């Protein structure tokens, strides 16, 4: 069976997601749902000295969306806020092994990416308006 989408790395992360938990007292949280499939992800992030010190996610949904979330938590671990801001979709896709996702399934992969980015931006803007 050919399964260019379901690379080993995706199945691994789906079956055994990394950082699959909710953090207590995170610096910011972010969650979203893809209404089309009901995919859901929720991230919680702690920062220290301008870097991601800890990150967790919970969620449910298809293998692509959940594996993407898991891989994304690995990817952002230890990154600076600046690096997070600069991170591109392609970085996540590469970390996923560049699976051959069609125009519909790519949304499953990008749910995590968009959710985390939006969470970061709203955190940054709320901080800047507080100072």
């Amino acid at each position, binding site marked *: *069976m*050919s*399964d*260019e*989408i*379901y690379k080993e790395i995706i*199945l691994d992360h*789906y*079956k055994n997601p990394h950082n699959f938990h909710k953090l207590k007292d995170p610096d910011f949280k972010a969650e979203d749902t893809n209404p*089309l*499939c*009901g*995919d859901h992800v929720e991230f919680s992030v702690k920062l220290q000295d301008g870097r991601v010190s800890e990150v967790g996610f919970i969620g*449910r*949904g*298809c*293998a*692509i969306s959940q594996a993407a979330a898991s891989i994304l938590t690995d990817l952002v671990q230890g990154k600076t806020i600046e690096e997070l801001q600069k991170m591109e979709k392609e970085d996540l896709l590469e970390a996923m092994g560049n699976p051959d996702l069609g125009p519909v*399934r790519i949304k*499953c992969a990008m749910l995590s990416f968009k959710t985390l980015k939006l969470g970061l931006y709203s955190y940054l803007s709320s901080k800047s308006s507080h100072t």
Partner: protein
Amino acid sequence: METVAFNVEELRNDFPILSKKFNGKTLAYLDNAATSQKPRQVIKAICDFYEGYNANIHRGVYEIEEKATMKYERTREATSRFIGAESAEQIIFTRNTTESINLVAKTWGASNIRKGDKIVVSLLEHHSNVVPWQVLAKEKGALLEYINLKEDSTIDLDDFKEKIAGAKLLAITQASNVLGTLVPVKQMTSIAHQEGCTVLVDGAQSAPHMPVSMTDIGCDFFAFSSHKMLGPTGVGVLYGKREILDAMPPYNLGGDMISEVHKWDVTWNELPWKFEAGTSNIADVIAYYHAIEYLQRLGMERVREHEKSLTKYALKRLSEIKGLRYYGPDDIEMRGGIISFTLGDVHPHDIASILSREAIAIRSGYHCAQPLHEELSLGGTARASFYIYNTEEEVDRLAEALNEVRKVFAK
């Protein structure tokens, strides 16, 4: 019309896409509830029009225009006969089932539904037969009620009888696009009519798959789509009782649907043109004739028989798969050729994606029936749906591939 033998292997030759290879494999197209494939007769009719007599209709007096007008109106006659309507003037061409239902909601609904009125739908409805009524009810301060299902996924007729009392409109599907459930719309229409209630039947999943007759069902409106019954995309049908259509205000306004326009006022054209504004989807309506003819030559009774036996076989094959659970009636007489299922906790999208690599096309998600999925506490389902060209061999391929999916996702 003469009927022909119902020979699946032979009729498959009429469908060009079924002889193509995808990833080196023949397409097992099992997403017919979404849209059907098209026979060459239909495709050819589109080409013949554009290559031979493409012209705008109803107004001109030159040769190809007259031919186009006649062929366009011929489809109306054929559609009328196909659904056993009283007359061709009661057939209105729209874009799809969705537009047909909206036309009713925005014209008949807007002028007949008042504050406190009750609109009854069922839990089986497709979004297209829910959202227009939800919004109309909100606008008018009317009530929307959902008929419940019984344990066996069929309509709870006791619940229906309770809810229909004093209702103004019953909007109900004849066949569920998720559970496959067939709905006794004739019986329900007659009960609703005793209450003085108007009845709209969503025939999107019934007209393509079984004999339907307006004079038999007795409903006031009936809506369906060409693209789900071998015809082109872009053509929907609305049937209505004549007195009701006559009394309805028009929907879209503009060219063709008017009789006279002066600077300050306008008179509407007669039925059915009153409801067809602007340049119609001429080519596709003309080609739709050949879809109807194709089905009629097969015979709708035999279409239903074929799907019934295939569905029976598929239910048996699928129930052999570990962790697979299918939904909808077990009684084959109560269901159409649609099987929604889940496979352990594998997400339906993942199932569909993996099947796609095997050139097996099924659908996954809510199938535009989110309220039903919520009622059944389902996150989403995978769905296989059959039509005239599907075979037991394709069902076997489906079953095998599902077993593979199970292995890939075994934890």
